[in-house]
């Protein structure tokens, strides 16, 4: 049956690449389309996670662990980034009473 074949053949590299690429693109599109800064932040996180997936897949493919360590680092940095980002957003919210990036265009020209 269909299900069987999928599980039989074990997932080959391409799937991971495609999946992570799709995730990444979703993240990018989200960044481009959404106006709410918090959601932008989430989309960026999504991009990072796509990278994580890719890295893990590659490290499995190369049979090396270093990429997985790298993933740890990415996670931590992502957390730090999220922290900074959220605090900036709070600051922004206090000043502008909104987190809609469409409103922030005092600086231009």
């Amino acid at each position, binding site marked *: 049956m269909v299900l069987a074949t999928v599980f039989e053949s074990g997932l080959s590299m391409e799937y991971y690449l495609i999946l992570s690429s799709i995730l990444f693109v979703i993240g990018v599109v989200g960044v481009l389309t959404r106006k709410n800064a918090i959601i932008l932040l989430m989309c960026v996180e999504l991009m990072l996670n796509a990278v994580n997936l890719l890295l893990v897949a590659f490290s499995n493919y190369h049979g090396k662990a270093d990429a997985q360590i790298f993933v740890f680092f990415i996670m931590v940095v992502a957390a730090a980034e999220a922290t900074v980002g959220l605090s900036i957003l709070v600051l922004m919210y206090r000043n502008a009473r909104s987190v809609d990036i469409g409103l922030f265009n*005092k600086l231009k*020209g």
Partner: protein
Amino acid sequence: MKIEQLVPLILLLPLLGGLINGVLGKKLPKKVVGSLATAVMFIAFGIALNVFFQLHDSVRIDLFTIIRLDSFSLNARFLVDDLSIWMTLIVTGIGSLIHLFSMGYMSHDEGYYKFFTYLNLFIFAMLILILGSNYFMLFFGWEGVGICSYLLIGFHYSDEKKGLLNSIAARKAFVMNRIGDLGLLIGLFLILSTFGTLEYNEVAAKLTELSPSNWMLFGITICLFIGATGKSAQIPLFTWLPDAMAGPTPVSALIHAATMVTAGIFLVVRSNFLFETPGAQLTQDIMLYIGLATSLVAAFIAMRQNDIKKVLAYSTVSQLGFIFVALGMGAYTAAIFHVTTHAFFKALLFLGSGSVIHAMSDEQDIRQMGGLKKFIPITHLTFLIGTLAISGFPLLSGFFSKDEILAHALHHNAFIYGALAFSALLTAIYMFRLYFVVFHGEFRGSDHVKSHLHESPLNMTFPLIVLAVLSVVGGALNIPGSHWFSHFLNHNVTGLDKVAELHVDNSSLITLMVTASVLTIVALIGAYSSYVMKKQLPVSDDKITGWAKLSANKLYFDEIYDVLFVKPIELISKLSHQLIEVLFLNNVVLGVAKSIGRTGDLVKKIQTGRTEWYLLWMVFGIIGLVVYYLVKI
């Protein structure tokens, strides 16, 4: 101490004096200022002598690199060989005497400290010009002396009577020199582009291996020569020198007679290896004939000048022409020899005239003078010696140096010899005229002036005496038979050793000398008879006619230049203003500028200030890169 330390010291001293006087001079008493400036000069001279005696081979002294880029580098480097040290001796020696003289001469001037500052700075610049080991240093000094001379010609710019004239004269000198400098600068660029260096010795070395085209060599040399004509007052750029007499007399003596005006000659002698190349033959001829013309024209003009300093100025121009003739014939040592003696007696004459003017309470018109010999005996005596020396009276310095040039001329071709001899005769005539009119006959000035007539103080007469002695014995330097000076210069100056030295046989030597002496004595007698016996006097300008009028009006050179250059240039500038600026620039160039500005505004529009757009642009960028990649493979 070794030469390496001494030479920078020579340069440092005048600079130091100049700086101290320039900064503190206003506060210090005149005595201190003057004696400081003079002291540094004498010390520098002493050091120069010391170097002169311990110098054997040419020495290079590296101070520092001004700019080093991988393509080329400009060095603050000095080249001490016999030529440069000799010039240094002249500059510092005569310089210090003239400083001493100025202490007395300028004593009543309020710009005292400024004067000595400029003077010291001039010496500094001149020494850089002489001692530099490359054309860059030479150019640096060249401009430096230019500025100092400009400042000193216009020194009395605030004078209520002649202030305006002074500043105009200064400006004229400045402009004329710029024209020359342009030529020099182009020459330097040509040298740099051809040889890739500005160091004298490297250029000389590369000359053989690169063997540039004759045209290039001609271009380089002619440009250098144009520079020389500017600084050394040759046709067509000589008219500034007589006007430069507006400056204080010591300045005329130092800058416009003894040292600065010989810079052009120095330049040519320095670059002799360039001028000796086949390509430069044409330049040499041009140099020769221009020198000849200058010396004749100037001598002719000098015949009927009534301003004591103007006469001397024109005689300077004529002597310089004389020297350029020598250079044109490749007689470099003869040229430097004459430069030396000329420095002696011309400085002497100028200082003498200064002393006269001082005694006459600033009256310069010789028609107001006369019979001064009993009022100012020392000045009279020294002035007489100077006159004899310059007019080539036998056994005085001028006699030998001129004679050598004449010998070369005879060897070169008879016509030049004749012309030179004629100009020498003219020189003798107008110099004796000047001498007799000023010192003989009875006094023609106002009684007021007469009451003030007085011999100058010692610190003014002393230099006169020293210079007089030098003018007498100076000829011994290169006396025929020994030719010490020629060998001295030839033994370590780049290129000069290759130049064939001319040795005339005794018979022709005798003839030469005899003719010269005869001419001089004829002139002497002629002048004596006309100006002392017949009491003939230079008449006021409006009465004179014919040749005399021509001469008195300086052959109308200024007027001719005015018609030939000034007027057309004014016209052109008017036109160009109308056409180029108003029509072309305003529309085209400004149009371009405007359009650029507009694009600027357009580009600024992209900066919307909206983050989402920025992100979009980034993504576009990435997509662009990916597309590039897809195209690439």
